[in-house]
């Protein structure tokens, strides 16, 4: 038994050495190119495969991003949920209910409501070390021009809830093809992007919303 243990450890060590290192080059390149995006507009289809539902539910949406930190994210056609980010503040709007809520960025990661779109923060990271600090890379694979990346946030609260974030991007254009959140209970929320337009001029009024007649609450106070 005493002899077996070192042998077993040796075998395990070799097995570890034998594992193929991940090719991170496409990821590094993709992250590096994030800086080139002054603006991004895209349509998407969000598909939620929830464990408690017999079949997935899908909903169309639209996303608009402009540097440094302007974001508009709409879900539903017509939009049932709109999120507008301006700097450090988020505005969550539910047009059908005529309700809106201001949420400070500091609440991201604390409030269940804010966490959902915190996952879709653009850009994901400023550079590769920043990306590495925020996410653990679980897997990388490339097929043709499509790179599949599986990551997990290092944030403990997010890890409690998530088992993986799956991102597919085009290695030539660095455009995101899909973004999927997989939760620990086996449910998933996948966004398939289409009609991606990069660095087009965006009317800043997109990031404004007329709240007249809305019941507005403010979580910043």
């Amino acid at each position, binding site marked *: 038994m005493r002899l077996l243990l070192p042998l077993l450890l040796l075998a395990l060590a070799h097995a570890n050495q034998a594992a193929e290192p991940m090719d991170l080059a496409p990821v590094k390149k993709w992250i590096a190119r994030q800086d080139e995006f002054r603006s991004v507009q895209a349509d998407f289809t969000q598909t*939620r495969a*929830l464990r408690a539902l017999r079949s997935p*539910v899908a909903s169309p949406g639209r996303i608009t991003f402009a540097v440094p930190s302007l974001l508009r994210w709409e879900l539903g056609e017509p939009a*049932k949920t709109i999120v507008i980010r301006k700097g450090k503040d988020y505005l969550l709007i539910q047009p059908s209910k005529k309700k809106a809520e201001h949420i400070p960025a500091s609440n991201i990661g*604390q409030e269940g409501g804010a*966490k959902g779109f915190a996952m879709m923060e653009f850009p994901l990271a400023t550079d590769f070390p920043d990306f590495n600090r925020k996410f653990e890379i679980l897997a990388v694979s490339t097929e043709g021009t499509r790179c599949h990346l599986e990551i997990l946030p*290092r*944030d*403990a609260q997010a890890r409690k809830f998530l088992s993986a974030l799956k991102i597919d991007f085009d290695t030539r254009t660095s455009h995101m093809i899909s973004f999927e959140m997989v939760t620990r209970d086996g449910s998933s929320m996948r966004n398939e992007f289409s009609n991606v337009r990069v660095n087009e001029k965006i009317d800043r009024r997109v990031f404004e919303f007329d709240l007249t007649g809305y019941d507005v609450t403010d979580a910043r106070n």
Partner: protein
Amino acid sequence: MPGIRLGWIALGVALAMFVAAGISRISFNVDILKLLPTHLPQVEGLSLFLKHFAQPNELIVTVEAPDSDTAEAAADTLAAHLGKQTALVKRTVARAPWEKNPADLSELLAFLLLNQPPEKVREIAERLTPEKTAATLQETLEKLTDSISPQEVALLSYDPYNLAGTLASSGLMSGAQQSEFSSADGTFRVIYVEAAQPFKNYKDTIAWMEEIKRHAAEAQLPASVRLGFTGEPAFVADISGSMEWDMQSSGIVTLLIIALIFWACYRRLRPLRDLQAMLVLIFLLTLAAAGLFLSQLTVIGVGCAAIMIGLSVDYGYFVYQRSLGHRGTVRELQKQCVQNIAWTATSTAAVFFALNLSSLPGLSQLGNLVGIGVVIGAVVMLTIFAPLTMRFHRPEIARPLSFIERLFESPRFLRTGAWLTLALVVLLLSTLVVKGLPEVDFSARTLRPRKSEAYTALDRLQARLINDRDLLSLVVSGRDENDVLTRLRVADTKLADAKARGEVASFRTALPVWPVADNQRANLPTLLPLLAELPRLKQAVFDAGFKDEAFALTEAIVNQWSVWAAQPPPIWPANEASRWIFRRIASRGDGQFLAMGMVQPNAGHEDALAASLQGQGVWLVSWNQLGRELRRVIPAEFVRVIVVLTGIFLVIVSVGFRSIRAVGLFVVTTGLVLVCLAGAMSLFGMTWNFFNLAALLLLLGTGTDYSILLLLALQRNGGDAPAAQRELSLVICLCVSSAAAGFGTISWANHAGLANLGLTCAMGLLIDALISLFLLPRAWMLLHGKKQPA
């Protein structure tokens, strides 16, 4: 002769039985609130909180690692390893019980819904009628499609009728900001370890802690993982252990110092051995008396050993000194000594007993212990030590003068001593002028041990996991649920008003989870018919596109209501998950019900808030708030006690001296000693706190003896200062050395307050002795216009 011998044997046996019985009952109380005045609202509230919400058998193990995965794995490994030690551990909890079994939360949800106002519950029942079921489920599906909140999506997936949505408006479903188990970054985790059996005493706790630490070390955790141990058992083991060590070490070192002093003065071994034996006997008898007649020893009471030995030895010195020149019988020697010893022992004991005038129970206990010890010491020295001294009596041999006596024979030494003492006084007074009075520190820090692994781990826990330093705890008590509910509603309204006025940043009371018997009584008839509707409701869920598992929670909630149908309200949830959640929110038992809450005040409003909420059965407390209250109350109380004691002393010395000048000199000397003590404290950067304020009282009781003795000697010797100094030099040297040793040795006590008390007293006594011996005679000469001594 055999009769006398038999009497001694009987006395020995009786004493041995007394000591054995008393010491076996000794126990330590590590609760620092036991040192503080119980009538203060903050002390009362915090004591209630600790009594009902502190978990006496629950150890908190902190696990810290460089990354969250290592920390999580280490916590799980350690929890599993400790959980296997079934002889030691009842259970270990490393994650919330509902993480392991989410279905357990259905009982809590059923309880919260049952507790809601009847109109809300009627709305629920309405949503589940055959006409509304489809619309309710459709609304849920839309939310599952559109919601951006993962929390809402996760909950609705398993709550298709959105029963929990009813609780949203009460704030019950808002996400908890803090976890009991993990820091936000996951690198700091906590395991709760419950002991298999309640602890019998502190030794049992110490042994258990050692075993737990041994098993933790055997768990083979990565080297980068750091463990900490806190919680009630860790505190008891930590502080009781150090208390035991403080008591033993200070007592033993005092005995050694006294032995050295005795040897330096008399160079005789047998009397020294007997004196030491007497001191040990006095210590044991006092400790036994404490065990039999007083409640648990507090950290301050521990200091009694060294102080008592340091003071009792004075009577031994006195008896031995008298015996050296004694030519008569033992009874005659005892007769000669009894008056002096009785006078000094009574006055010293009286001052220590006067500490009962203080409302600080810790000080009262110290006073009682030393008071008892001093009286026992006087009796032991007179009845046992006096006969022993005569056994080695060698009257034919003239005793040579001791080194100290020879020193005081030298005029040059007296002159030099006076100049050096004057220089010391000038230095201390200058320090006082330059640096000012010592600062006042009434923070809870002075109540804590200086070194404690349990406190270090607690500080870390507060820094990483539960930062409650600025929070106030709301404690609401009552005779029954309804009593507490009424008070909770009043407190909740007051806090909401305070929040509207900007005095409170946020607050959370137990009101949303406290059982409301009237609501429960009204809601059960509305909810119970749903039991018969379960098959229909389940089918509707399936038809809407959900899987069967989506209905499990609804089914469990409805079933739980039917379980409670036979139970008279108020109903409490009782399963493991509910008990875990409620253990820090609500407490029941012994005819007392308590509810806990947390208030985050805006800076500067703490006092007003505490005062406005303070009422029958309601307290708003925190350790910081306690410090503020003590700062308000204690100094005034000490001033009161000191004024009373000073008055008593002035009457006594006036009767004793029968001279206004002597009384004046006594007052000036005592005043100068206290001012110099303040200067010395400033010089060494010491602060005034609850405990060393008592040093002033103790100095009045012990230190003033030196000036009184000197003044009496001056009167006896017709104002001949050198003669008075020669007469008392040895006695005062012996007394101050032993008393300062007694107090000085507790300066290394682990309890900061006790250590400070010891150091302050030791310094005060030395200053008192120097001023009394060297400056007071000079002042007498100046005042009486006599010639200066050569």
